[in-house]
């Protein structure tokens, strides 16, 4: 029987693999640093490398720990996340990737602000990005906290705090070397780990996934192969589905990846590689989830964490013993570290660069000063993540990331689309759409059953749905359109032709 608690072999395996992956990362990053500047990695990253890095950024703890746990506890309904996390990518490649590459310099805000006034748009976009980053961070903290608790037998709260400080140290020290290579190393590790785990599960079912699914259905009833256990309300299902589909195109740390490649073509091809890797990985989550359901058992998974987040590590323990548990836990932890590094840096950059330098110092701040503010912002974000990570104990991390997607789809996606495709879009319209999307989504999450019933232990929640996307995405579009029509901005419409041209050619000289 799998048990929670300290185990020397697992701990040793964990520490060895974490050490190794940090060493590889450090070595690779050092190698890169000598040839390319950190921020201007642009030009050197190939399509396959960027595809791997995109996959690395995208497959966070939510994908590996969260979905496996959700499938293990709820069967089919967990797969809604596997599928939803992937269907956003055609939208990204068809509508967003190339224009983004050709229009911007460093962040998607550059694109929204292309023909609008810089400062007001940047401020609004920072708020949107920070909200997305915060929910993503909380999810990673919950995953990492559970992992450390499972391995070392610490209290959850203490585990989250320790994880938070380890991450803080990693980001402050690794921030400078956390380049594309971090994500590449981690993506390869994660894919290899998930593949090995799935292989060992299927070994017991003569390599027939259907035999595995059937075993799950025999033990827990046919309903695990059918929808309804988790997302019973139709509106909730649609709302979650929309948030997942359109959220991908609004994730700041994913959109940033299109600036590390030389041109639109490489951006496009890199998405093709990324989607193949991510899609393959999500197909594996079917096997990991049902494998954990059958080979570990739902009671065993729930006993360790109510959110089910430890299904994959427990499955590793069941099929490969303590050393394999250590390996899989290390892979998961490396995944979380890499994602957190990227997220924290994106958040800190938004706070220090966009808000502090542009708002308070009107563009006049020394690099040293900016660095101090960036470090302070990192510490602030880490503390914030620790506190909320503790509060959100027992929540599934894939679900938490689903909320981050809802914010991204409501705050960033409408403004991005309107700025590129709708000529009359204005500065006020962009501001209103982004701020409305952010605030409305956060408010609806606050009054949803997740916070009111699960966290605050109230009897009822004012808003009955767990994911607000269905309401906030169309409303954000509407707010952007209405406010733009009320505040015409001739200079913005005049520059639309230039924007259209640059979408195809990039910057012409």
């Amino acid at each position, binding site marked *: 029987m799998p048990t929670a608690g300290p185990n020397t072999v697992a701990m040793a395996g964990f520490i060895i693999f974490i050490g190794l992956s940090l060493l590889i990362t450090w070595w690779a990053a050092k190698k890169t640093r000598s040839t390319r500047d950190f921020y201007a990695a642009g030009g050197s990253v190939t399509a396959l490398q960027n595809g791997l890095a995109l996959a690395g950024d995208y497959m966070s703890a939510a994908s590996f720990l969260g979905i496996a746990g959700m499938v293990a506890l709820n069967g089919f309904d967990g797969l809604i996340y596997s599928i939803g996390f992937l269907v956003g990518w055609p939208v990204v490649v*068809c509508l967003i990737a190339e224009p983004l590459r050709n229009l911007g310099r460093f962040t998607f805000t550059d694109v929204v602000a292309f023909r609008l006034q810089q400062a007001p748009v940047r401020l609004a976009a920072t708020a949107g990005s920070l909200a997305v980053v915060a929910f993503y961070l909380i999810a990673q903290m919950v995953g990492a906290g559970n992992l450390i608790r499972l391995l070392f037998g610490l209290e959850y709260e203490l585990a989250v705090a320790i994880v938070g400080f380890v991450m803080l140290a990693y980001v402050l020290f690794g921030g400078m070397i956390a380049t594309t290579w971090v994500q590449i190393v981690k993506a390869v590790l994660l894919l290899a780990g998930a593949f090995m785990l799935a292989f060992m599960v299927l070994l017991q079912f003569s390599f027939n996934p259907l035999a595995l699914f059937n075993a799950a259905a025999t033990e827990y009833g046919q*309903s695990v192969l*059918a929808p309804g256990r988790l997302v019973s309300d139709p509106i909730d299902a649609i709302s979650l589905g929309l948030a997942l*589909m359109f959220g991908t195109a609004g994730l700041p740390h994913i959109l940033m990846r299109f600036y590390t490649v030389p041109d639109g073509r490489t951006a496009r091809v890199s998405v093709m590689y990324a989607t*193949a890797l991510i899609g393959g990985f999500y*197909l594996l989550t079917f096997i990991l989830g049902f494998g954990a359901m059958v080979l570990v058992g739902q009671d065993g998974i729930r006993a360790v964490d109510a959110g089910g987040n430890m299904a994959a590590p427990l499955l590793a323990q069941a099929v490969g013993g303590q050393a394999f548990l250590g390996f899989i836990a290390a892979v998961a932890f490396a995944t979380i570290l890499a994602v957190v590094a990227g997220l924290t840096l994106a958040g800190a950059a938004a706070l220090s660069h966009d808000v502090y330098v542009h708002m308070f110092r009107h563009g006049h701040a020394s690099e040293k000063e900016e660095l101090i503010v960036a470090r302070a912002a990192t510490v602030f974000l880490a503390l914030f993540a620790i506190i909320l990570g503790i509060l959100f104990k027992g929540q599934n991390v894939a679900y938490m990331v689903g909320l981050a997607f809802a914010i991204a789809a409501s705050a960033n996606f409408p403004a991005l689309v309107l700025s590129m495709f709708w000529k009359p879009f204005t500065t006020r319209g962009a501001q209103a759409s982004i701020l409305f999307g952010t605030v409305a989504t956060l408010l609806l999450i606050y009054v949803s059953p997740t916070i009111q019933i699960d966290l605050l232990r109230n009897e009822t929640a004012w808003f009955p749905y767990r994911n607000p996307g269905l309401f906030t995405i169309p409303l954000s579009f509407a707010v952007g359109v209405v406010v733009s029509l009320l505040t015409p901005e001739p200079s913005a419409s005049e520059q639309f032709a230039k924007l259209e041209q640059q979408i*195809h050619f990039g910057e012409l000289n």
Partner: protein
Amino acid sequence: MTAAMSDSKTRLLRVSAARWRLSIILTTIMTLVYVGFILLIAFNKPLLATVLMPGLSLGILLGVLVIITAWVLIVIYVKWANDHYDATVAEIRRAHQEGN
């Protein structure tokens, strides 16, 4: 120069329109497939619960197909853009620079 400019402008408009058309068609297909799948989850759970063979429900089969659809659509777009769009844009760009 003006003749070359206006020629390249029409060609740009044409290739731009072709790209948006394909983008919008593919995005629409993805949206319809996925929203259709989600609507089935929302409103016709018994249908998705149909067991096709032991261990395989219609829901799981369709789920796998949605994932494969997403990837096929991306490959179609990337293939078209690599073969046609890039070549045309490069040509227009050349003409444009010569025109200058």
